[in-house]
């Protein structure tokens, strides 16, 4: 049974598909809980702060990105909570996943920016290599 499910999202369509799979896993057990993590990328910090009026507005913008994922959870009555991490997406997700005890980590296969991926490698690849729990990559 997968009781503690970690769902890493970036607000893309892929993360909504990953959320749908997480829902399937979660419906298997009445005790399961999904933790949705979103990483506020350090690389975008300057840009995001500059273009938002206040830290509250910035927080709201990030919550908006997660909203479709939250809706997917809510529609199926899945228990979930949201965590916003700050850092570089790959390492931040791995650190969080390894710090807490999760039964499985669910993540979408591609993120938003294919150019960055070409240069830096994909976040999901890094997560698979270094996370201690099983990882489900959703295509």
């Amino acid at each position, binding site marked *: 049974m997968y009781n503690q499910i970690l769902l890493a999202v970036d607000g893309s369509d892929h993360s909504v598909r990953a959320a749908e799979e997480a829902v399937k896993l979660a419906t298997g057990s009445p005790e399961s809980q999904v933790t949705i993590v979103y990483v*506020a990328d*350090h690389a975008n*910090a300057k*840009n995001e702060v*500059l*273009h*938002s009026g206040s*830290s509250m507005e910035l927080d709201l913008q990030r919550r908006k990105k997660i909203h479709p994922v939250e809706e997917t959870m809510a529609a199926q009555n899945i228990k979930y909570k949201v965590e916003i991490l*700050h850092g570089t997406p790959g390492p931040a997700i791995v650190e969080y996943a390894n710090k807490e005890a999760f039964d499985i980590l669910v993540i979408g296969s591609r993120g938003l920016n294919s150019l960055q991926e070409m240069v830096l490698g994909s976040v999901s690849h890094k997560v698979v290599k270094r996370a201690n729990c099983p990882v489900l990559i959703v295509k």
Partner: protein
Amino acid sequence: MLEKLKTQWFGNVRGDILAGTVVALALIPEAIAFSIIAGVDPMVGLYASFSIAVIIAFVGGRPGMISAATGAMALLMVPLVRDHGLQYLLAATILTGVIQVLFGVFKVAKVMKFIPRAVMIGFVNALAILIFMAQVPHFIGINTLTYVFVAITLAIVYIVPRFFKAIPAPLIALVVLTAITIYYGFELRTVGDLGTISQTLPTFLLPDVPANLETLMIILPYSLALAVVGLLESLLTANIVDDMTGTPSDKNKESRGQGIANFVTGFFGGMAGCAMIGQSIINVKSGGRGRLSALVAGSLLMFLIIVLGNVVIQIPMPVLVGIMIMVSIGTFDWSSFSYLRKAPKADSVVMVVTVAIVVYTHDLSIGVLAGVLLSAIFFVAKISKIKVEKKLLEDAQYRVVGQLFFASVEDFLEKFDYEVEGQKVYIDFSDAHIWDDSGVGAVDRVVMKFKENRNEVIITGLDTGSQKLIDQLAIFTNDKAKLPSH
């Protein structure tokens, strides 16, 4: 309290020492380059970076933020140094500190919220453009080798970090290219051609300026500009570090801390500085979170200069130019282009005007001031649009929608049809608000004009604030009052 201080200093020792080391190495070329921009010896920027970073470690309000000599401040000093010399700059630095301490005491940081984001975006873009422009005389039309070295430097700083991140790429470029230049004896301008490096610790000195009113009048405008720009960049940086670390910070303490740092730095032969966006991001990314990292960065910087001073003067200028071009590219807000397309027209205009004024005047403070004023005017223009809807039934019925204040009274007055006689005129203010005595005066004039033609005016729907103003200021309730004549 003591517990909090302990975490701020020793909560992250390993990360802070590592990040502080990285920052110290990345600071050296910038401190030298910013000194050259300001037109002073490299030591002035290096002493400033040492002293500001170390003092801020103790008195700053945002642990994890790096402050030192910066481009924004250096650009403001250029005319002062050119016309009056270094001693006046040191005096101005001390006065800047005093002003910033006052900013902190009077909680000026709060005023930041009145600076629209369009102005802040304009600020960083203008800063980037000015840093780039300051490099042009150091690489255009010198010789071919200069261009080659600038290009190689840029290649190193952009390509190396893709594969190797432990040492800051600018430092790699600096060391490798300086070594090559010395080895092959290339004909390139060096830091030594533009100033001297002394391998000594800074000493306490009073600036050598006459202590009179004339001196004050010379330095005051510069100090004010430096204080404002320094605070602005420091608070923007603090917000960025707040976001990156997910922790809040004390903005007024930071302002006071910047002031103390500049005040002391002026006595130790350093130029005014502020928080650095780029270095603070490097610090946090490298794992720096506490006060220790700024202390390590400042002290290590000084140590390296004392040990390596005679190598530093041999750094070729094209390498510094390359690094500064990287800094300006990193400072520029590249999403501004999509911002210009998406943002409301007024905001785009404010952004572009801010940049244009700074690039024209070479003064960031004037640009910010102009940007804030312009957006204030746009804002007033926007909300001064007032609508008066008219329904002609048996009686004349008007409904006012919008804000009634000094900028909207003229429109408001024109919207009524005063040609009626002996009627009941209803004016509904349910969707309006009266803000000032001009607004009340306008209501007065409308009522009087209607009454001249023996109409009866009934005003309804005033909200509490508007009603209060009317009660205090309006004369129309008094039937004998005449229409003010002018």
